[in-house]
């Protein structure tokens, strides 16, 4: 058992496991964050911004005991949080995308991945000691509706935010756009359930990489400009982000077109994991739903779920 983060590697192999196609270090940040947030909601950890000191135990499988089946995170006085190896699936998909982009993997190649312990590379020089700290979760106590399970997480979005997202999509034509989402996070002290209410949005300017039908680049200028505006709207916290997936030209011409552009891509995962890593931060995608014309855009909400990203239903608030 180790208190430090063990080195874990995502390894992609051919379907018959004969050859290694590529590897990437697995990032434990999302499962650590999930366990910390759940612990705070349950009242097990104080909400003081200090990350819990987890001991990590790997359950290994396979004849050579070289595959990680699950990872247990343990902290004093807290119930064990256990995550299956599949909690790293989005990270594995990012590896596949990277290998395809680097032309090291043909699109459509049948492959499988697993998680294995890795050896830490020797550092070129003595590594500095790293001590983590953070802001407390911006939780406000509130009595939420009865019947919420302990640790349950729900999201409500104000209608004006959705209307702004629709307008952003339709006015952007065939170019993606994006915005920060601002809101408030509530916790019911009786049940430990949480509710995120998204109340406002601040448009993000594209970064140096620009924007197109299929991408929207974000960089220091994008984040700094939007954060400046967001800070001026006092009392609201960063709740996540919104971005648009425009309909194609055919969709606009043919109302009967059944194409659906509302999905969460591996690029979107990379944005979310890099900039919206707190367990309550969400991603809202607006675009053309398969059963609606392009002129009536729809939404899907994606949220952290035990270290992974899952689609989550949301309520609409007036």
């Amino acid at each position, binding site marked *: 058992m180790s208190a430090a983060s063990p080195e874990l590697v995502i390894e992609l192999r051919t379907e018959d496991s004969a050859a290694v196609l590529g590897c990437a270090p697995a990032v434990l940040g999302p499962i650590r964050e999930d366990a910390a947030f759940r612990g705070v909601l349950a009242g097990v950890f104080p909400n003081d911004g200090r990350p819990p000191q987890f001991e990590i135990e790997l359950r290994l499988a396979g004849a050579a005991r070289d595959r990680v089946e699950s990872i247990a995170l343990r902290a004093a006085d807290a119930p064990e949080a256990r995550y299956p190896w599949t909690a790293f699936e989005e990270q594995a998909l990012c590896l596949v995308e990277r290998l395809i982009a680097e032309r090291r993997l043909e699109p459509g190649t049948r492959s499988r991945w697993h998680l294995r312990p890795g050896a830490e590379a020797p550092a070129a*020089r003595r590594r500095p000691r790293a001590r983590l700290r953070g802001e407390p979760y911006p939780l406000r106590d509130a009595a939420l509706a009865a019947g919420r399970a302990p640790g349950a997480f729900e999201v409500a979005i104000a209608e004006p935010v959705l209307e702004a997202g629709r307008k952003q999509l339709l006015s952007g034509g065939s170019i993606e756009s994006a915005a920060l989402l601002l809101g408030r996070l509530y916790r019911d002290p009786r049940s430990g359930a949480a509710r995120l209410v998204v109340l406002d949005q601040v448009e993000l300017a594209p970064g140096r990489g620009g924007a197109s039908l299929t991408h929207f680049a974000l960089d220091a200028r994008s984040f700094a400009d939007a*954060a400046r505006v967001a800070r001026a709207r006092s009392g609201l916290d960063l709740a996540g982000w919104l971005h648009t997936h425009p309909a194609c030209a055919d969709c606009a011409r043919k109302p009967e077109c059944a194409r659906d552009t509302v999905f969460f891509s591996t690029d979107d995962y990379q944005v979310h994991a890099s900039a919206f890593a707190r367990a309550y931060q969400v991603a809202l995608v607006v675009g053309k739903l398969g059963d609606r014309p392009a002129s009536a855009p729809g939404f899907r909400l994606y949220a952290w779920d035990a270290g992974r990203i899952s689609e989550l239903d949301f309520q609409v608030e007036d």
Partner: protein
Amino acid sequence: MQRTEDKEPIRLSVTDWNQTRSVDLDEVDPRATIGELVAEAVQALGLPRGTVFQALCDERELGLAGTVAELGLRAGDAIRLIPEVRAG
């Protein structure tokens, strides 16, 4: 000639873009590159290692190949990590 103080390890902090989480790096070798510190902080903060991060100190962008000493960073300086990402 290298100044004496350039050889002394210093303490720096690195924060995420929204300054909600940070990592204090103690005993940073002034010969360490910003890229090495960014990699250290990205690992400690649990951020994706495949993402490119810009490093800013105040509003100044720090080149990843530059060293702590070359860029004139001082004990107590805070580096902010801003992801350079593309939504799809």
